[in-house]
């Protein structure tokens, strides 16, 4: 072991002596003690280390940090993946339920029934708020098979006014986009053709339609059904991308 190696090893040993029983360090220490020059170097080195350690361990964290850590843990836990994922298939299933069952909405007057609004809002807005907080562009999931089978077994045809036919449902991803219309959350649904549910917080959309109103937009191949609640605005879209919706808002 040459001097350079001895120094390298001893510089990695703690000044407190906590590592001195390690065979490699014991050997380096023995060698250092036999060489006056190395012994003096080691004294200086350990003095340097002790001083630096004293300076570092003298730092006190902010007085409130401990309480903040404990309080933060009581206030909220990080959401696990399934809690983030769960709303998307739920939202997709509820869209299907919303359109499959006439009791959930009323179409002749162009105004959603209160039950329909609340039923949908309860889950879709939950999905939206989660997407807005945690955009998951690569997210992939599907409706639970049993729920899909149940929906299909009903044999309910999709109303004519729907922009797309959705014999099979499932959410296959979500994303969020920001543009002039504000921040939009997009749930990509799997049907016979591509369709997206676009959700935005009401406050982030300029010229948001009145709560409870319903709009229909068909232009340039775009087929959009929109509605609004007190808190959110929704568009179910086929034949276009969410970005193109912004030009109409």
């Amino acid at each position: 072991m040459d001097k350079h190696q001895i120094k390298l090893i001893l510089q990695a040993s703690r000044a407190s002596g906590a590592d001195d029983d390690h065979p490699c360090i014991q050997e380096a220490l023995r060698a250092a003690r036999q060489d006056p020059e190395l012994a003096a170097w080691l004294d200086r080195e350990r003095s340097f280390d002790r001083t630096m350690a004293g300076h570092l361990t003298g730092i006190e964290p902010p007085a409130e940090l401990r309480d903040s850590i404990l309080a933060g843990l009581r206030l909220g836990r990080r959401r696990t993946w399934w809690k983030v994922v769960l709303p998307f298939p739920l939202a997709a299933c509820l869209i299907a339920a919303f359109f499959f069952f006439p009791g959930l909405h009323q179409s002749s007057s162009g105004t959603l029934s209160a039950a329909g609004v609340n039923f949908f809002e309860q889950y879709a807005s939950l999905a939206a708020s989660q997407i807005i907080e945690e955009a998951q562009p690569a997210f992939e999931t599907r409706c639970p098979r049993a729920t899909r089978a149940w929906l299909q077994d009903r044999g309910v045809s999709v109303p004519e006014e729907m922009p797309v036919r959705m014999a099979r449902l499932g959410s296959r991803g979500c994303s969020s986009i920001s543009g002039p219309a504000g921040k939009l959350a997009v749930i990509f649904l799997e049907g016979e053709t591509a369709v997206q549910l676009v959700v935005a917080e009401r406050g982030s959309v300029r010229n948001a339609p009145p709560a409870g109103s319903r709009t229909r937009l068909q232009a340039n191949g775009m087929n959009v059904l929109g509605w609004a609640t007190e808190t959110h605005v929704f568009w179910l879209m086929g034949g276009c991308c969410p970005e193109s919706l912004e030009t109409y808002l």
Partner: protein
Amino acid sequence: MPKRDFSSIVDAYYRDLFRFALSLARNPDDAADLTQQTFFIYAEKQHTVRNEKAVKSWLFTTLYREFLRNRRHANRFEPMSVEDGPNHEPTESDDPITAVDAQTALDCLQQLDDTFRAPLTLFYLEDFSYQEIANVLDIPIGTVMSRLSRGKSQIRKRLRSSRQTSDGSVIPFNPPLQRHG
């Protein structure tokens, strides 16, 4: 061994975690965030830490990974250039460490690139052996030794430089004794 409750683990480690975070993030607010985030993650994943003795290492490793992740995403912590000049060996007369106050010493530590700052901080906290530092930072033992050596050399260089800057001249802490006769 009975499992320790969460608050006792916070009490045992939050100070050193904060010190480590401060040396990485270089400001107290980010350091506090990193410390808090580390315990937050621990609260969720503590069931995966089966060995009670591994908790300390797990916490420091997690904090370091969170720091790297935050830096990648937010680019909030500007990297410093590595000034790795010739490895100047200190002599008894010019070792600057005892001549400076704690703040200056810590400032010099924080000015190092985090390549050197992270292992040096763990080393000076005296909680970890060099093997454990290698595990926490996920680097080979030889690299830890090399970085400790070079990091100490850089700190000394900066301490000398800071003393020259503040005083305008170098004043040895221990002037050589005048030999008579």
